[in-house]
Structures are given as C-alpha cells and as structure tokens.
C-alpha cells in the first residue's frame, strides 16, 4: 500500500530540495543593495500605520458567535432536503418545528439588539 505513495514522497522531497536550493543560490549570486524604501512592508503600497496586533471591537465576536450557531443548522437541513420525498409530510412538520425553535432564538437575538452594529 505504501508503494502507491512513492511518487508523492519523491515529489515532496524534490519540492523541498528545489525550493531551498533556489533561495540559497539567489542569496549568493544576486546583488544585495537594500534601501529604506525597499525594506518597507509594502514597497509600492500603503504605509503601514500601526501594529496589526491590536484589539478590535467586541462586536466581531458577537457576530462570529451568532454566525456559528445559526450556520450549523444547515447541517440538519441538508440531509433532510436530500431525503425530503421519502420523509413526506411528517418530515416536513418536524423540520417546521425545528425551524420554529430556531426562529424563537432568532427573535430573541434580534430584539435584544445583538444584530445592530452601532
């Protein structure tokens, strides 16, 4: 079984060797004349204003949390949709109840103002 993967190992080894070799060759042969402009983060882009490792608004977490929760319902909707015909009216009603329960949660989130950015 492992023999089947032999070409992949060769490929990985070749890739690593080639990549490191090219970098080193460049370092030895190429001229190196750094200027202040060249060594900036984006040579022909915007000047970086401040560090990226700063705190950002708590609202992002709120949106992320709500997204995770309301996103995962699709996990249940998809198998239901695929076997919709076999499940029939009972499956439809069950899913209706499921969505209704989610809707209750959505109304809560909405009325509490968690969806408003400001």
């Amino acid at each position, binding site marked *: 079984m492992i023999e089947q993967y032999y070409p992949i190992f060769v490929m990985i080894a070749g890739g690593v060797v080639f990549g490191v070799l090219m970098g080193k060759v460049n370092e030895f042969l190429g001229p190196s004349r750094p200027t202040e402009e060249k060594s900036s983060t984006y040579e022909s882009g915007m000047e970086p204003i401040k560090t990226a490792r700063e705190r950002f608004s708590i609202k992002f977490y709120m949106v992320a949390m709500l997204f995770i929760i309301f996103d995962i319902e699709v996990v249940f909707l998809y198998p239901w949709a695929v076997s919709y015909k076999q499940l029939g009216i009972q499956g439809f009603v*069950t899913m209706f109840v499921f969505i209704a329960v989610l809707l*209750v*949660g959505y*109304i*809560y989130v*909405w009325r509490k103002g968690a969806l408003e950015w400001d």
Partner: protein
Amino acid sequence: MSLNIADFVSSSPLMAVTATALLLILVEASRKGRPGLSFTLSMAGLFAASVFAVVNYSDEQIVFFGMLRQGWYANFLNLVFLSAAMLTVLVSKPYLERQGAHRGEYYILILFATIGMMFMAGANDLIVVFLGIELMSLCLYVLAGFFRTKDTSNESALKYFLLGAFATGFLLYGITLIYGTAGTTNLEAISKNLPTLSSQWMFMVGVGLLLTAFAFKVAAVPFHMWAPDVYEGAPTTVTAFMSTGAKAAAFATFVLLFHQVFQFTGSKVNDLIAYIAAASMVLGNVIAIAQANIKRMLAYSSIAHAGYMLSGIAAGNSEGQTGILFYLVAYTLMNVGAFGIVGLMEKVDDQNLQLDDYTGLSQQRPFLAALMAIFMFSLAGVPPFAGFFGKYYVFLSAVKADMTWLAVVGVMTSLVSAYYYLRIVVLMYFRDGKGDVAAQPAIPALVAVTSSAILLLQFGIFPSFIVNAVQKLF
C-alpha cells in the same frame, strides 16, 4: 414508522418544560426588564410539568423511534429534577435581586438545563444521553458565570467549561467505541448483546471512558478537582442547582447505564467503581474539615456524598438502585436547603460566606438557624432525617453485595463528616454572635427552604413512601 399522539403524551413533562422555556425566550425578547413575569411563568411551567410527571407515572414505554424511554423511572427522576429546579427558582429570585443581577435569562437557562436532565433520565439511546448531558452542561457553564462583572464567577465558569468540555471528549469517545463494537447506540440492543460484547477489549475501553466522563460529572475522586472551585465561585443559587439537579441527572444516567445496560455485577468494573467511591468518601470528608468557606466546605461534602451514592452503583443490586434513588431525593432536598440558607445569609461582594459568620445565628434568626441545623443533621446522616435512610440503604446494598469493607469505609467517613456538619450547629447555638449576621428576610426563599426541611422530616420518618415508589421501578 411514524409519530403518534401517545409519544407526546408520555413525554408531556418534557414537552411542558420545553414549551415554557421557549415562551420565556419570547417574553424576554418582547418585554425588557420584566424578570418577575419570567419567575412566575417558570414556576407555573415547572409545576405543570410535575403534575404531568405524576399523571404519567406508569408502565415504561419506548417513544420517539426508540430514542426515549418514558415511564416510572424517567418520571420519578423528572420529579426530582423539577423539584430541584422549583426550589432553586424560589431561592434565586430574592438572591439575584439583592445581588443586582435579576434577569429573565436566568430562568430560561435553568429551564433548559432541566430539559437536559430530563433527557438524561429518559434516554434509551446513547445519542440522547450525549445531547442531554450537553444541553444541561452548556446551560450550567453560562449560569456559573452569570455574575459577569465578578472575577470569581467568571473564573468558575471558565474552569467548569474547560473541564466539562474535556469530560465531554471522553464521553464521546466512549460512545464511539461502544457504537463501533455494538453496531448500534440503542441501549436495549446493547444490553441484549452484552455477553458477546463484554469480551471485546474495545467495548470495555468504551465503557471505561464513559465511567471516566460520568465520574467527572458527579465530581468523584480522582476527577473531582473542578468541584470546589466551581461551587465556590458560582452564584450560590446556581451552586445549589448544580450540586443537586446536575448530580441527580448524572446519577440517573449512571444507574441507567451501569445497572440496567452494562450488568457487570461482581466484575472488575464494579470493583473499580467501589474504589472510586471509597476514595471520594475519604478525600471529600477529610478535606472538608479544613475548609473555612461554607460553600467550599459544602463542595467537598458533595464529593463525599457522590462517594456514598457510588457505593450503591458498585453494589449493583436492586437495594443499591433503591438506595441511590432514595439518596438522590434526600440529597436534593438537604443540599438545596443548605445552599438556600447560605444564599439568604450572603451579602453583596461575597460577604458572610465564612463559617465564623454563622456564629450566634440562633439568637438573631432562630428560625433560619433551626432550618440550617436540620439540613446539617440530615447531611451528617442523623436520624430521623431522610439523609439517614439514604445512607442506610446504600450501605446495606454494599453489605449484601459482599462489599462490607465499602460499607465500613462509608460509616467511618460519615462519623468524620459529623464533625464539620455539627461544628456549624455548635457555632450557631453555643457561641455568642458577632452582631452582624442579619440575613435578609425573603418570602419565596423561606418558603423553599422550609418546605425542603418539612419534606426531609417526612421522608425521614416515613421512608416507605419513597421506597415503595422506587421499588415499583425495578
């Protein structure tokens, strides 16, 4: 296969609590700042569910495509969970008002946690066990951190969350290995194939992982280290609920799995449970002596009580089952009562939580002191309170299962425990007060603690009432 009305009728306690919880979410969404309404509605919903549980106290039947088993066992435990929830709700209202954190979400979370517990007791499938535990635990994580501006509450929530989620991993891996070897997650089917399954090492590893996860949930040694921190940091009323409802639910599933599905009576598995039980009794009781904070002391005492109940599981006979179920009723009443009084005594900013603060309570608040004394006597296992018969039945079952050493350890550690329980009684009655212990009067909380004390006395004097109801089950 199709659903029919009977499925919904026999699981009506579950449906009632679920409907109330959803209604409460809508109430909370529509009217801002009306937690009083949520309090009333949640009490009404819990009471209605208890009525349904009494009405449906009947033969067991499998409902919802073999997922749930409703009947005697589930409804008996439903009544325990619902009473724990009702008593907690009653003691919570004045407590939260005093602490300035009275919000409707509290009741929603209590109700959803109760639903999770009811799923655990009525499970007939490992998937339902998993979902029940998670629904309960997730609500309790949030409740532990309910005082979000308090460092201790936040810290308790984080510790509970991390260790609880860690235990979930073990639970899930256990379920997976059992599913892989048994080919099903249905408890009845597993129970039928048990003789062939129990010779497979992978199945036994799965059972071991489940045992680990449940030992975590009931806070048994060596998986107890979260309990003191979490119980101390969480709001006192939440601790009351965690230490009774959640523990009762974990034991309900424990009995369901390790008595009715995996029958390993007399095997190595039961010996292992016996060692865990003995270690919990010894460690919980010995460390509790050294505590100065009453919530922490009660946390170690709850580890010890988990040990007493585990000895009923280790015995594995029908006396053990009766004993555990009786114990759960008694333990729920006395622990909610004790934490309820701690909640009444507690002031803002964690004041009045040391044992010394109870000095001379009998002079200033004789009624509260008398109730606290009842709970302490019952926790210590002094007759005629229900706590005594709980211990009596589990130790009796251990003796009948040829585990006399376990019963001896139990009795010895109970004697040790009497020291720290009765110390509070001595402080309250035989020492002069510091003058500033005045607990705030609060009608709902007083109703709750008084009724738990009365029930403790009643079940202590007439234990046959519960024992008959329980023995019908098996």
